[in-house]
């Protein structure tokens, strides 16, 4: 009986099916290996995008490490070393940065948050136009605000190059950033909270101050601190208006001031006179300290917000 089965002639349909299965398996293998190759290429893209960050951090730390000391941060440059030198320190630039950004923040934070409150509560034509303007301003090249500040404060008001002109440019730069992120945070508060407040008889202003603002506060703080981090690293607007050559410590924002980014930029024109090597220049110390300031602000912003959210729960 079984012999009979073995002696049957080969079934053409079965043979064709086997051939097709072979072909299909081949094609599947080919497509799968192509797919694996594609995934590999994407992983390579990811690695390529990580390389610059690693390289930047590595060069900042390896070249700037030895300048990371209290005397360098708090010291003053010797007379005659106006822009940058490894002798002495950079107190003038640290204080300049803090004063310029601080003054900008004092104006920009209230204006930005108030604008955000207005934008988050209105949907009229005026509000929509302003919203579009704010959004386009967040992508405006920062140098344009330097040109603006120079025109208004230096040319029209005939004031000298000064720290306050830099603050003016920076504040206009960051108001849109604060307004946009705060508006998002305010709009993220559930509508039911506002309705509950109104149902209890609270006035709209009271609801905003007492309910909506506190609920949106973590988001607002994150956005604000991030915008300050951005302002701290900005060079272009400050470059045009603060006047730089001064190596003298100046606490008065009405006079010329230098900031850390400006010092780094000017190093290109006036290299560190105390060393001829690009690698050993004090410019790396300034860059490392600047990046540390910025990292503290931007990581801090996330921690503060996360902590506030956790406490609420």
């Amino acid at each position: 009986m079984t012999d009979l089965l073995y002696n049957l002639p080969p079934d053409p349909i079965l043979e064709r099916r086997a051939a097709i299965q072979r072909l299909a398996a081949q094609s599947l293998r080919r497509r799968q290996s192509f797919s694996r190759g594609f995934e590999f290429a994407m992983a390579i893209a990811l690695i390529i995008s990580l390389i610059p960050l690693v390289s930047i951090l590595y060069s900042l730390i390896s070249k700037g490490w030895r300048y990371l000391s209290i005397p360098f941060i708090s010291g003053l440059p010797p007379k005659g070393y106006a822009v940058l030198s490894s002798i002495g320190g950079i107190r003038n630039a640290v204080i300049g940065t803090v004063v310029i950004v601080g003054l900008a923040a004092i104006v920009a934070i209230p204006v930005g948050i108030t604008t955000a409150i207005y934008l988050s509560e209105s949907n009229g034509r005026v509000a929509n136009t302003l919203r579009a303007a704010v959004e386009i301003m967040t992508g405006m090249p920062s140098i344009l605000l330097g040109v603006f500040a120079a025109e208004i404060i230096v040319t029209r008001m005939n004031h000298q190059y000064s720290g306050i002109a830099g603050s003016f440019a920076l504040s206009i730069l960051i108001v849109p950033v604060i307004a946009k992120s705060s508006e998002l945070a305010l709009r993220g508060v559930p509508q039911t909270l506002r309705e509950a407040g109104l149902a209890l008889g609270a006035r709209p202003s009271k609801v905003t101050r007492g309910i909506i603002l506190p609920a949106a506060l973590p988001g607002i703080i994150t956005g604000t601190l991030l915008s300050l981090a951005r302002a701290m690293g900005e060079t272009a607007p400050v470059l045009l208006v603060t006047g730089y050559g001064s190596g003298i410590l100046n606490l008065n924002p009405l006079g010329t001031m230098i900031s850390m980014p400006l010092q780094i930029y000017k190093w290109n024109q006036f290299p560190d006179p105390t060393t001829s090597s690009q690698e050993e220049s004090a410019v790396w110390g300034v860059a490392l300290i600047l990046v540390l300031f910025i990292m503290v602000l931007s990581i801090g912003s996330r921690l503060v917000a996360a902590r506030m959210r956790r406490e609420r729960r």
Partner: protein
Amino acid sequence: MSLAPNKEASPSEVAERISRSATSDRAYTLITRGVALVFGAVLLVFVWSVLNSAWPVIKQYNYHLLTSSVFSVGNGPYGALTLILDTLITTAIALFFAVPIGIGTALAILYVIPERSRTVVSSVVELLAAVPSVVYGLWGVVVFNGLFKNIFHQTVGLSIFLAGLVLAIMILPTMVAISRDVIAVVPRDLLEGAYSLGATRSRTLTRVIVPSARTGILGAIALAAGRALGETIAVAMVIGFSTYLPHSIFSGGATLASMIATKFGEATTEDLSALAALALMLMVITASVNAGARYLTRKASAS
């Protein structure tokens, strides 16, 4: 009979309280709207002031301002053709590298690496955005430029190409963050549908996922381009200042923004007007690119 002391406010008191809070409410509306509108007015003054200080040069040079390639600081003549070309070329080089790498990175973050490392990897890539542009410039001049010379065994040096590469790195976080967000909202059904039809992962991603996120990715590219067009300080540091028409991408150049930054300090009154005209061109270009980006990202999130 004696009544318990009435703790409720008399009707007149209630009315007074309501009217007082109504006043404070009006004041509050006035203040928020007022501050917002004053800021809007400042933006108008900003545009007006740049236009106003550019006006003398625009009136004098007319369309030659756009078509002439000679821009000489120190009382002219002023023509921005070289600067506009260099701005466009550096941005094109930056996009050429940043777009494929950015989209690839976004796909890798979403579909290739393990899910729990996703947040960490994305925030590490976004750290690039926190590095100030002057530090990119410094790194570009000293480290990247040196690396370049070592690899190609020639003195490429500071050039339009180097500026384009540094810009590519600077816009990468924008590219990655936004394309990741728009790709992440593509409905999961599409992915599962493609898988169930037997499509491999690469085919699903390139034929289904990326095309569905097309509008959003275009928005990301426009935003990144806007950033590259207006970037000033890093470009000014690595482009190797030159105002001649570029004969190759390995020669020096100057973009609209880098020109303003480099020459503002030594400018005469007339130069200031010409630089303001450059600022105006930059404003028009970046505002329209950003408006386009806004339109595209809106459209992507609406659909």
